[in-house]
């Protein structure tokens, strides 16, 4: 994922090419990465506590933009075309295209507020706190490449995945579930960027394309559901059972 440094790592292997090695060298990079990841955690918490759908869409857009910056921040001076393509692609898609698409669906659906979710906002935030604690614990335990330098990356990735899953099951609006899916994908993206340097560009572009089409198809589905049912609450999609 990142361009490989020419010189070997400190313990003689050039296998650990992740930014943990790099970040030990330049504290500025470490700081920018940690800043981005911390803001990602804050956006997740905001998503758990916010009731207005418009605010949620904007928050996910902001998160997408930040994640686009992540490879640039970790790449530092070793930025290559590969990293730039990935960064620009994901920023444009997640920061601008997705929010626009979802706002379009929202406008068609004439709704702005989540109606009485399965779990209230205070409760969601409380659960979010527990999930964050669990993610940090998991990040400390999961040792990648023989070091614990990556524990914060793994923790944030896990927290994002858990937040996404939680949003999918605890909210009723179809749009909220799309947002949950996006947050979960963001978590996987953080894990991929941070922990595994070897994923080739082609796979990542495929992943990005797939997410794009997924959100596109889901947006269309939300539109149709709204038109057919005059609502977009997924708990009322209960004709098919058994």
């Amino acid at each position, binding site marked *: 994922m990142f361009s*490989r440094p020419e010189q070997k790592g400190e313990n003689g292997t050039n*296998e*650990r*090419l992740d930014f943990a090695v790099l970040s030990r060298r330049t504290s500025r990079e470490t700081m920018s990465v940690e800043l981005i990841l911390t803001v990602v955690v804050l956006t997740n918490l905001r998503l758990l506590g916010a009731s207005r759908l418009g605010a949620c869409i904007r928050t996910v857009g902001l998160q997408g933009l930040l994640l686009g910056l992540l490879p640039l921040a970790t790449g530092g001076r070793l930025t290559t075309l590969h990293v730039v393509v990935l960064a620009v692609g994901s920023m444009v898609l997640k920061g601008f295209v997705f929010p626009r698409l979802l706002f379009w669906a929202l406008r068609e659906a004439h709704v702005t507020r989540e109606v009485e979710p399965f779990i209230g906002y205070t409760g969601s935030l409380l659960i979010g706190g527990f999930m964050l604690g669990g993610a940090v614990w998991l990040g400390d335990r999961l040792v*990648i*490449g023989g070091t614990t330098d990556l524990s914060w990356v793994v923790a944030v990735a896990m927290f994002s*995945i858990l937040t996404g*899953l939680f949003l*999918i099951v605890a909210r009723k609006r*179809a749009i909220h*579930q799309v947002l949950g*899916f996006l947050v*979960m*994908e963001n978590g*996987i993206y953080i*894990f*991929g960027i941070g*922990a*595994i*340097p*070897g*994923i*080739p560009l*082609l*796979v990542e572009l*495929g*992943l990005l*394309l*797939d997410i794009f*089409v*997924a959100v596109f*198809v*889901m947006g*269309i*589905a939300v539109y*149709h*559901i709204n038109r*057919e*049912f005059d609502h977009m609450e*997924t708990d009322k*999609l*209960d*004709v*098919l059972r*058994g």
Partner: protein
Amino acid sequence: MNSYLMIWLLLIVPVAAACLAVLQKSARVALRIALVGVGIELCLGLAIAKRVFSSGAATAGAEWLRLDALGAYNLVVMLVVYFLSSVYALFYFGREIDAGKLVANRARMFAGLWCGALGAMTLVFVSNNLGIMWVGIEATTLLTAPLISVHVTRESLEAMWKYILICSVGVAFAFMGTLLVAAGARSMGIESEHILFWTELCRNASVLDPAFVKAGFVFLLVGYGTKAGLAPMHNWLPDAHSQAPTPVSAIFSGFMLNAALYCVMRYVPVVESVPGLKGWSSSLLILLGIVSILVAAVFILSQHDLKRLLAYHSVEHMGIITLGLGLGGLGTFAALFHTLNHSLCKTVAFFTAGRLGQACGTHNMSRLSGSMRLSIVWGGGLFCSILVLIGIAPFAIFMSEFQILKAAADNQAIVVAALFLVGCGIVFVGALGHAMPLAWGDPGDARLALPARRAEAAIVFLPLAALLVLGLWMPASFKHALAAAADVIKQAGAVPADSMFSIAR
């Protein structure tokens, strides 16, 4: 033509057909183009499969694309099912176009996505990079989702929403699993571009980090298992299968599930050769297989909708294939054999059920009773295919299930064998209870006889005849191909393919 070119053509033909079909004005022409595209793909697939079975794996694009015996076998099964379904779709949608139930642009959309989904599934089988394989699976989810609501109704939208959300999340789990395996492969010491190459992972399995591979395989099994419809991740499946137009249901059940299971098959030899993990993945697979069989058996008993009944049969058969895969040895061989049997039979079952449903305007079994009097092709075909599905001797499904039972006995897994038999027994009784009135019940009101074209009778009865022949006699070349495919999933070496056939007779 060299195999390098053929692999690329396999990917190009569906995309070209999709583009051509979308550009047509007439709905019928679009459907015909889809059929021709699938036909060309079938010829290509057969030609390259013959080459792969005789002279080993073919590669293209700097090893990014690779077709070995396992991939080729699955590819051929898929293309046969796809071709049959395309022929059926031509007649099925032709009638709807005549009745004014299908407008031209929906038909065009169907034809385009139909070919696109074929391309995505082909990509799954020819990619050597496990990341690209994942991209193919996710692409099939996205391309087939709109196919469920070709007719926009409340039920079809609900089914589509469940399908796309559950499968997307599930397949995202599979990507997490792929990443974890990649993290465990960092010790391989090869160039990072090649880290997810299946060939490299197999070659270097002994130096993979067991903890990561273990975590990764759990994610992969849950992720791809969701797409394959294994219980307890199967909730989307009955809805999607019952609401989609019948040709789409046939492809869903007949092959899309197998494509996801194929991805699991790819990982099994890697995980099994990681030190300390021998037998670990097998026990997970056996557990998941048994759970799927039993859950499906319970739900089959209480079904009223014909297509939902068939959908739960899919859950059961996916469970059986997973079980065979987990048992290893003879079980792997039987699981692959079962893949073909189930795909052919389930496709025919959906064809007949779909036609009856189209004529009567319902899939409710009590209102479809006495279907044999309606039409011997559709009603009789449906009854026969249900009989084959539940494992009547001497059809091929009976043979493959028997081999799996024998594999369980070979492994001294008595509890597994007993649970398998209980599950199959419940399904047998339950489905027979549904099938008898469906064939001979009282039709209630007098209805018009349902004519069938000769081509339609052929796509119903030829696959059933093939299953009968395969149950009684397996051609040597086919046995060779199956054994080669099973050898790719390395556990197969334990029992030679010949011996069990003599015992099974």
